């Protein structure tokens, strides 16, 4: 009986990829462990091995096909003695013919998230860019601009970045400025802060912020507090960046969101962007900021495509929220990946006739209270959405500020939609339950609307 070879996932978050190359053709014999194909996503390339002995009876997806969904059958291997000649079928060339059922057609275009931003001048040309590309472009532009800026972290150089954020930077800037570190977060973070004391402008990449807990003493005690403790004589111009929050199925130790943790610390600036335009403009601002900046990215968002203004030196100011969707009936405040729930919920609510205004906070510290309050004074209702835990969360802080500054304008108590108060579970269903959902956001808005 023929065995189907399925399109594998390269990472917990991969949904589709390109079948880059076949190393075998129909009729070839393969043994377990033979490399039969290469697949790639925007962040990695991997070889596909045969898992069984046999003869390649059919190749179902042609070399060069893009956007092949994970788990799509890409080939069949027939066992010993099976009649492989009985199933001659030419592989379908890319772009795929619509008749070939086994092939997931390349989508016409990557989904592009809309961006509405008052900061972008009318008539500005936009370009499509993933968050990943935006982050890379921001670092490259700033490194070209200032020789004191350098990048260090695990796998940032030769490996081209664990999440491919630093792809190509080693080639352009060399090993002096793109530095692979040993796996010693505590040590290399302290070293980077010391280099910043010495006047350099390090970008420290944490593969994820979960590992920065080993380094948090230097982020807080050494980087954030020194300007104050030295009476303004010296501080650290440094960016700590990397993925924060849940990815997919990586369990409790790799899924924590650190927005609330770092945003409590005076002396730090904390940025958590959603769109590629903000990722680019805010990272550039962070690198130029004379203070330590914690820049929280999200693995799920790395591959999302957005419109980014095609402007030389696109900068987004730190500390300024963005009205992502105007509305009159309720305010939804979110940031980072929380925005994905907020936007989908707003669309559903619009269908019910409720126009929610979405504020993308973008920076958690300093928090743009003014923009939140102005919106709440208009809508009288507020829902805050975040993936982090509820207790002492950023949502809690937003809700409190609303009560301090706009209590008399509120027509309903503020509602938080957060990650559940449990360590992140591994099981797919439980993991989904632990995170906020669009339904919860919709329900929360209905609640503050009393509908």
């Amino acid at each position, binding site marked *: 009986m023929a065995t189907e070879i399925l399109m594998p996932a390269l990472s917990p978050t991969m949904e589709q990829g390109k079948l880059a190359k076949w190393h075998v053709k129909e009729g070839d014999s393969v043994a377990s462990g033979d490399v039969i194909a290469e697949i790639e996503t925007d962040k990695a390339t991997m070889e596909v091995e045969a898992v069984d002995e046999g003869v390649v009876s059919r190749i179902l997806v042609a070399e060069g096909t893009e956007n092949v969904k994970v788990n799509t059958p890409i080939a069949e291997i027939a066992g010993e003695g099976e009649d492989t000649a009985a199933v001659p079928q030419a592989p379908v060339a890319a772009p795929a013919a619509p008749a070939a059922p086994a092939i997931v057609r390349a989508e016409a275009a990557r989904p592009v998230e809309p961006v509405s931003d008052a900061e972008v001048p009318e008539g500005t040309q936009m370009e499509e860019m993933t968050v990943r590309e935006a982050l890379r472009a921001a670092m490259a532009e700033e490194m070209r601009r200032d020789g004191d800026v*350098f990048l260090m972290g695990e796998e940032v150089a030769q490996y081209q970045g664990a999440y491919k954020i630093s792809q190509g930077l080693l080639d352009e800037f060399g090993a*002096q400025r793109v530095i692979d*570190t*040993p796996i*010693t977060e*505590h*040590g*290399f*973070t*302290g*070293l*980077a*802060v*010391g*280099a*910043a*004391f*010495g*006047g*350099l402008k390090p970008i420290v990449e944490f593969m994820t912020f979960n590992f920065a807990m080993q380094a948090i*003493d*230097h982020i807080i*005690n*050494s980087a954030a507090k*020194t*300007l*104050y*403790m*030295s*009476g*303004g*004589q*010296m*501080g650290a111009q440094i960016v700590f960046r990397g993925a924060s929050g849940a990815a997919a199925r990586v369990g409790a130790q790799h899924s924590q969101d650190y927005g609330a943790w770092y945003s409590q610390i*005076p*002396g730090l*600036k904390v940025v958590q962007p959603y769109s590629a335009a903000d990722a680019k403009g805010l990272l550039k601002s962070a690198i130029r900021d*004379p*203070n330590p900046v914690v820049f929280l990215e999200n693995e799920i968002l790395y591959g999302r495509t957005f419109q980014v203004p095609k402007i030389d030196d696109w900068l987004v100011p730190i500390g300024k929220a963005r009205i992502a969707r105007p509305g009159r009936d309720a305010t939804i405040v979110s940031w980072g990946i929380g925005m994905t729930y907020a936007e989908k919920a707003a669309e559903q609510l619009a269908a019910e006739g409720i126009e929610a205004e979405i504020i993308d906070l973008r920076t958690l510290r300093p928090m743009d209270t003014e923009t939140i309050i102005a919106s709440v004074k208009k809508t009288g209702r507020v829902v805050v959405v975040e993936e982090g835990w509820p207790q002492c969360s950023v949502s809690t802080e937003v809700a409190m500020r609303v009560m301090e500054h706009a209590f008399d304008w509120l027509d309903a108590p503020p509602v938080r939609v957060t990650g559940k108060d449990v360590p992140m579970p591994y099981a797919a269903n439980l993991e989904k339950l632990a995170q906020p959902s669009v339904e919860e956001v919709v329900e929360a808005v209905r609640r503050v609307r009393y509908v």
Partner: protein
Amino acid sequence: MAAKSKAAAAKPGKAGASGAKGGQGAGKAAAASAKNAFSAFSPEEELSAYHDMLLIRRFEERAGQLYGMGLIGGFCHLYIGQEAVVVGMQMAAGEGDSVLTSYRDHGHMLACGMDAKGVMAELTGRQSGYSKGKGGSMHMFSREKNFYGGHGIVAAQVPLGTGLAFANKYRGTDRVCLTYFGEGAVNQGQVYESFNMASLWSLPVVYIIENNRYAMGTAVARAAAKAEEIYNRGSVYGIPGEQVDGMDVRAVHAAGVRAIAHCRAGKGPYILEMMTYRYRGHSMSDPAKYRSKDEVQRMRAEHDPIEQARQRIVEAGHASEDELKAIDKKIRAIVTEAAEFAQSSPEPAPSELWTDVVR
């Protein structure tokens, strides 16, 4: 890489569990002593070292006094007994070399040329202190004098100093970073993370381990495996290490010259274990019951770095007793002026609460 050893002169007599470990290294010490021998100081060097050590001693005595009067708050860690370490090292350092250390930092600041008035005023929490009164005893800095703190978290300064060395190398200068820490800090993981990167990337950093035998109340041998060989803690990373008589400013200086030259030549980091002793408790609130009065007395009587220097100066005729008294008098005047300044200087304005958080 073979670690070099030098005789440990600073042996407390019967130091309880810690004991005196110099004897074990005696064989190696003998072999290495010729190489590590130091020549006599010139008269100018002797007098300069004497002056600088005495300034620290008198400053710290006065700080202890002000603490007792309630004028200095919080934690206050005195450097009395260890003066030869930082003075000898700073004599070996050059213009532009950077320094950072732990919270036992007053001596280091004075040795870096920071003003006694500004240091004392910071201790009393006044506006004219080095950190405008917002740092305190453990957190003072002077970019002008290349003094990068004053760090209150044990061993945090080790990667920070390694990073300053990284910046030197990145910029292509031949400047060296002198990173001081205690023998208590050597058990922290970040020390080895730093050793690894410093050696891997050949960073110009001298790690100066001030082994004063007690990490707060814990004798070194109760906390450190192979306590007699702390200088050797970098050997697996290929970092040369020496044990140095940290009570003899000439030995410290000579070792400092070797270590700094090694770093300047681009050969990577270097470790100096300074065998020293603190006469006072860990901080002002520590009665130091974990060691005998006899042990402290013996160190003071037999190994005091300032008294040793004084005797050498007199015996060699570099200065008369009267001339030394004049130095002492001058130093007392500096310290008195600093103490008066620190008491008369105003507290920071309430508005200072909100400045220097971000820039």
